[in-house]
């Protein structure tokens, strides 16, 4: 379903009196998110993350940092401007309830994936992000995230371009290099 289609469905439901006002209001706020991040929680746009089933506490923190310009991204700083704290929480909860992104049809190179899996475990990524990389609390889901976005994020944490709410990722990535980031992103984007 397209974002417009989904919004239209909610508007119809609202007019029919089958939805409370706040649900329609939430959907109005969610629609612009989904237009880039994907109607089904799966982004089709380059460098734009999929947000379906993302942990709500993580999303709240990111939305807050965008709103306060502690994390800089022109579209996101603009989109979050004027949102109330309750909106951040409601949007994060709604995204967390959407289906997780699906792995790409191309299953990937088994030998490369196996090497990448070993590298990931060696670096303890699965300790916090979970054995299935579905995340927990403030630690984000990584499973089947877009490969380009994963790589961009790893590079931005390493270079300091992306502000971290707590410094954990900055520390973990300091001893690692770009060749490893490429493998991490490849593995996480192809999880099955």
């Amino acid at each position, binding site marked *: 379903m397209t974002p417009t289609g989904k919004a239209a469905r909610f508007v119809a439901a609202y007019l029919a009196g089958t939805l409370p006002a706040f649900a329609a209001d939430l959907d109005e706020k969610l629609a612009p998110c989904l237009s880039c991040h994907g109607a089904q929680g799966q982004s089709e746009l380059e460098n734009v993350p999929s947000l379906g089933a993302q942990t709500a*506490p993580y999303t*709240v*923190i990111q939305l*807050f*940092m965008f709103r*306060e310009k*502690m994390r800089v991204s022109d579209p996101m700083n603009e989109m979050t401007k004027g949102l109330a*704290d309750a909106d*951040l*929480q409601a949007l994060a909860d709604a995204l967390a309830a959407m289906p997780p992104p699906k792995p790409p049809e191309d299953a990937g190179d088994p030998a490369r994936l196996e*090497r990448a899996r070993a*590298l990931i475990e*060696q*670096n*303890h990524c699965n*300790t*916090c992000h979970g054995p299935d990389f579905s995340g927990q*609390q*403030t630690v984000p889901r990584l499973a089947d995230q877009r490969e380009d976005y994963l790589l961009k994020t790893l590079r931005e944490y390493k270079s300091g371009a992306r502000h*971290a*709410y*707590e*410094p*954990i990722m*900055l*520390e*973990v990535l*300091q*001893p*690692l*290099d770009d*060749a*490893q980031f490429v*493998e991490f992103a490849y593995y996480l984007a192809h999880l099955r």
Partner: protein
Amino acid sequence: MNSIRSRSRSLLFAAVAAGTVVAAAPTWAQQPAVNPSSPTQPPVPPSAQPGAGPGSQPLTSPAPASSAQAPAAPPSWMQGAPSTAAVAKLAPVPALPIATAVDKLPTAKLKLPEGFNIEVYAAGLTNARSLRVGDNGTVFVSTRVLDRIYAISDKDGKKEVKTIATGLNSPNGLALHNGTLYIAEINKISKIDNIEAQLDNPPKPTVIYDDLPSDAPHGWKFLTVGPDNKLYFNIGAPCNICMPSDRHAQIRRINLDGSGAEVVARGTRQIVGMDWHPTMKVLYFTENQRDWLSEDQPNDKLNRLLDPGKDHFGFPYCAGGDIPDPQFGWGHSCDEFTKPVAQLGPHSAPLGMRFYTGNMFPAPYQNAIFIARHGSWNKTHKIGGDIVVAKLNADGTVQSIEPFITGFIVDNNYVGRPADIEWLKDGSMLLSDDYNGAVYRITYGPPRQAGMGR
């Protein structure tokens, strides 16, 4: 061991043995292991060869042929962690960047000694940390995971909260001196002169000192002005446990213009609270000790600096004043280092501390130290999450440590986390809670009528 410790320990064991949750024990029993005596426990023998324990890094292996083979250093908060299933559940407890609504704050759950009252002073101050009160009554509140400083003004009995600085790098440390607000970020100290006259249009802070490491782990600072009119601040160890550089794990002082930097204490792992003894004019400070040594060791500490420039408080060789570090303690004895004046419980995370010199609280609290224990994360059954009061002997040693405000831990979860303490002019206490983004006020005497005297 003093009686508080042994009694609460036995109650704790009784509760566990009976199969009840610890939270079912009496409130005081949830706050064990506050020990004002000097450390007397025998050192724990290391159970493994140095450097061979879980989580340690190989010291002599050749450089890996491929970068894909290089094991990553764990983040500082995980260094030294063994890999067991129980450990996987222990991690720092980050607060969400959304302040708790005023009607959801936990004041009704908190327990205070008879005659004391607690009320919400101001809410909506996300991540409220260090507190300072200006000459005109403005309350300044810092943040650690945010980038800003708040000011709370009283307008005809109504609290008005303004954000007076943003874009700062973990600006935890605040000090006020002769009308100037000093701000300690991770990598610089700055100031705003005459701040209370400029709350509506404050200028950008002016940097006075920036010869500082930029490490984020334990990079946040506490800031205080000494009786010598110098600024004192800590530089933490950028790790859980490591050999710090000669620029880390220390207290420095600088002149009010940023000149004349000196190291006055070494071997301090991380400090988030300091204050000056009202009559002896000696610096006391809380110090947080390493994680992952065990559930019950080492104790966090209350220290005092008697010999500026010479005192070494033990990091990384000796933890808690009495435990040689299993990795770095070899070849050292805890007796080489300055002992704490009190142990404050393992992992309990004592942060803000202030001496009481006001005239509202009863006489026994005069010149006592009130300490905010932020509470543990590296411990299965949480401890801390309270305010304790340390009463001192005439020579400045600790006579007793007693609970003062308890109840921030309910069913092993936080309902709030105390961060810093400061005094209003009337002698009442302000207490910040960075978990809820709130500041509370604690008074002694009959509860006031609503809307009066606030």
